[in-house]
């Protein structure tokens, strides 16, 4: 079992921007010390939902400040960037860290990102698919030569080449069936949110399994990971009460920046997200607080016993053994560090998790 921490760089009113990054580095270093296997950075623009606009740059800093832990991007928003630059920087970090860097990619969900960077959101899935294929081609064949629907590239050889051989693991982030099928057809592991029913989650993994198998991949060997907010307190109610307000704020920041229903309605390639909105409305969610409650019900938030029970059940029912936790929901530096410690010492060992040997 591998466990990583999500470094959100969320910016609440009571922290300065500098504090956001200072504390984030504290969390990263603490994760390294406690033996967590990985730390993951989120790319966002124009929102206090997350202040990190360049996960690759920040990953370089985190890698430099840590000794052992793997550092991943969750995500690089591929359509906003250039595939050769991503491949170059990934390889650079892979070389500098001796394989400690992990590239995770996504296609974006915030309309102002597409607007500001001049990218057609309606083609985000095609762009992502092509860029991923280009990066992997660079890893496999050394050339960026490409003639595709969204980009044409000359026959150039980016340097440095990758440290990890034959090629680094690349994660795809998302859980729409189209993304799952796309990732499965390439054998890319998925980072998925732990939300919704177990049966729904299993259906995602079943779909992945079927497609991956039909493309010659062994689905059992693919290290999918599930992401969740994580917090522990004396009782489950206390744990929820501790973070409810902050979670509602964070959700609101997300909703302020994300596609609206009206925008999603016009984007066939975001049909899944439209369906999620619709399901929430039919479920009875009317306010941000309603959705926050729903999200918390599915998160690893509760007493030690409840968190252990929940994770046991998820692991048993899905077979997924990798988890990425967002411990920051108290938005209090010391309490976040405490939560990381409690999970590392009281929750995770009961699930068979072991800190990395050098920790």
């Amino acid at each position, binding site marked *: 079992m591998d466990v990583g921490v999500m470094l959100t760089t969320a910016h609440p009113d009571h922290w300065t921007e500098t504090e956001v990054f200072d504390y984030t580095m504290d969390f990263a270093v603490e994760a390294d010390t406690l033996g967590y296997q990985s730390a993951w950075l989120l790319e966002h623009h124009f929102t206090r939902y997350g202040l990190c606009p360049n996960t690759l740059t920040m990953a370089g800093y985190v890698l430099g400040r840590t000794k052992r832990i793997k550092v991943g991007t969750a995500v690089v928003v591929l359509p906003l960037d250039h595939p050769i630059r991503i491949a170059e920087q990934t390889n650079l970090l892979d070389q500098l860290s001796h394989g400690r860097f992990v590239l995770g990619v996504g296609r974006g969900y915030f309309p102002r990102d597409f607007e500001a960077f001049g990218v057609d959101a309606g083609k985000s899935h095609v762009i992502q698919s092509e860029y991923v294929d280009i990066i992997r081609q660079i890893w496999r064949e050394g050339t960026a030569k490409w003639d595709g629907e969204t980009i044409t590239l000359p026959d150039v050889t980016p340097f440095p080449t990758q440290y990890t051989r034959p090629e680094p693991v690349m994660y795809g982030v998302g859980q729409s069936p189209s993304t799952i099928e796309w990732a499965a057809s390439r054998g890319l592991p998925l980072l998925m949110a732990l939300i919704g029913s177990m049966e729904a989650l299993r259906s995602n993994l*079943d779909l992945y399994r079927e497609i991956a198998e039909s493309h010659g991949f062994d689905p059992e060997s693919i290290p999918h990971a599930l992401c969740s907010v994580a917090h522990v307190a004396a009782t489950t109610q206390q744990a929820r009460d501790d973070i409810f307000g902050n979670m509602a704020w964070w959700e609101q920041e997300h909703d302020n920046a994300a596609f609206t229903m009206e925008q999603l309605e016009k984007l066939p390639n975001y049909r899944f997200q439209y*369906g999620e909105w619709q399901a929430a409305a039919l*479920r009875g969610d009317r306010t941000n607080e309603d959705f926050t409650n729903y999200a918390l019900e599915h998160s690893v938030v509760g007493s030690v016993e409840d968190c252990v029970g929940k994770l046991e059940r998820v692991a048993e029912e899905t077979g997924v053994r990798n988890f990425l936790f967002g411990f920051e929901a108290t938005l209090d530096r010391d309490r976040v560090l405490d939560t990381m410690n409690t999970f590392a010492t009281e929750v995770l060992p009961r699930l068979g998790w072991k800190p990395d040997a050098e920790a």
Partner: protein
Amino acid sequence: MRTGERAESQVWTVTTRNMTAAAGNAGGQTRPRPAPFMVWGERVDPDGDPRLIESATGARTAVPRFDDRTAERILAGPPADLAAVPLQEIVTFLNRAGQLWKNGEYARRRLYLRELKRLHGYSDKMAETEADLISATLRSHAQMHDMVAVELGHRAVLDRWIPREDAEVRAFPRGTSVHVLPGNVPYSTTVSLLRALITKNAAVLKYSAGEPATALALAQSFCDVDPEHPVTRSVCAVFWERDCPQGRRVLGAADVICAWGGAEAVTAALRACSPEGVVVPFGPRRSMTVVGRNADLARASRGIAHDASMYEQRACFSTHQVFTDGDPEALAAGIERELMFYADLLPRTAVTADEAAQVSLEAAAQRFLGSSVRGGSWGTVIIAPPGRVVELPTARTVFVHPVADLREVYGWVDAAVQTVGMAPWSLVHEHRDELARRGVCRFVEAGLSPLFRLGGTHDGLQPLVLMTRMVAVEAPRADYGKNGVAPVDQSEFLEHSRLRDLLV
């Protein structure tokens, strides 16, 4: 080469190609796909000793063995009391599931499409159509209320007491319904389950070896909506072999059994059902079309092609025989043209070896007997007198029967006929009484046979009536009723017989 020879070789070519495609999708070459049971909303995965079941195309599925433990869990009853849930809440829940199914970006729908292709050899279009049907059915909230109103008299009759003359009536669910499902028409599962749920019955879906997909997908999609909802917790999707003693126990404990499929399934249900239980039999049935000499041939032909193409004639409502007092050659040519059109519009499902053999044998027999046989990758059309039919094959095989007078059709109808399509529609007024008297259950305009309209019946039954108990609270003494002008007192009436004459 004669037309008939070409036809047969083309049929075989198609058969071989389709079977190869089916085997590629599933068949015996790939390992069986594991599938769970769903027991009152909870998953039971197959263990190391699964039961292998096989569809008509040879696709195998590994399911759990139906053992004592599973039977006991079912017999213990659902953990939720669906009878206590208002109908609008049930309908709303089904609508939520239907909205999921409507979205092409729903993983369960994607898996279901793959399963239909694997199990049945469906084309992409046919599989999509089937999933769309599930979505449309689950979202048809107004129609669900209307079905209750039409069959049970009032749309709130499952929720409260409804005044009816000198009584109040309320419909109660029978309890647990067991659905012995067919392997030929996946949509039957949706219909059967829907009827159970809108009458607040718990539902045990006993799927067929050839069609585990729909029952499981529906039960699991309910979990996707809300794993703890009373609807979710009132549904099971399981499989047992015909002679399985645990399965017989479940059937014996059922309050109502909906038995779909062949005579054997219905007979087995009747045998297993307890004296208090009710069996609702669906099938086996066959269907036909009547085309008058004044019919618009183009429209009639298209309608017949549609009714013969949906479900590849595996359904009870699929037309096989077309009686006409018009020009049989012109009609046959029209049907051929439209079946070709349908080969593109609704690409053919993989034909099983049995089906292919049946078509070829019947075509050969008919040719030998002097019938006109035309066929190809699109299907087969045979012009023959009705008495010459040996078998009614599937795989888009249509007989055209010339008759001098449409009243001759009466002689070819019995209680096994479900649907009669009419073209032109005006024929129905002339013939429906006699055809109905001889056993026909349902009349539709040609081309509408799969569309069961609100208010219609199913195999001559009103299923919701059979799935409920109608309880009455009759008016008390002080309520005179329309026949009385004084309090109703039976003892007084007996004691003073003259009162009856004076007051009633």
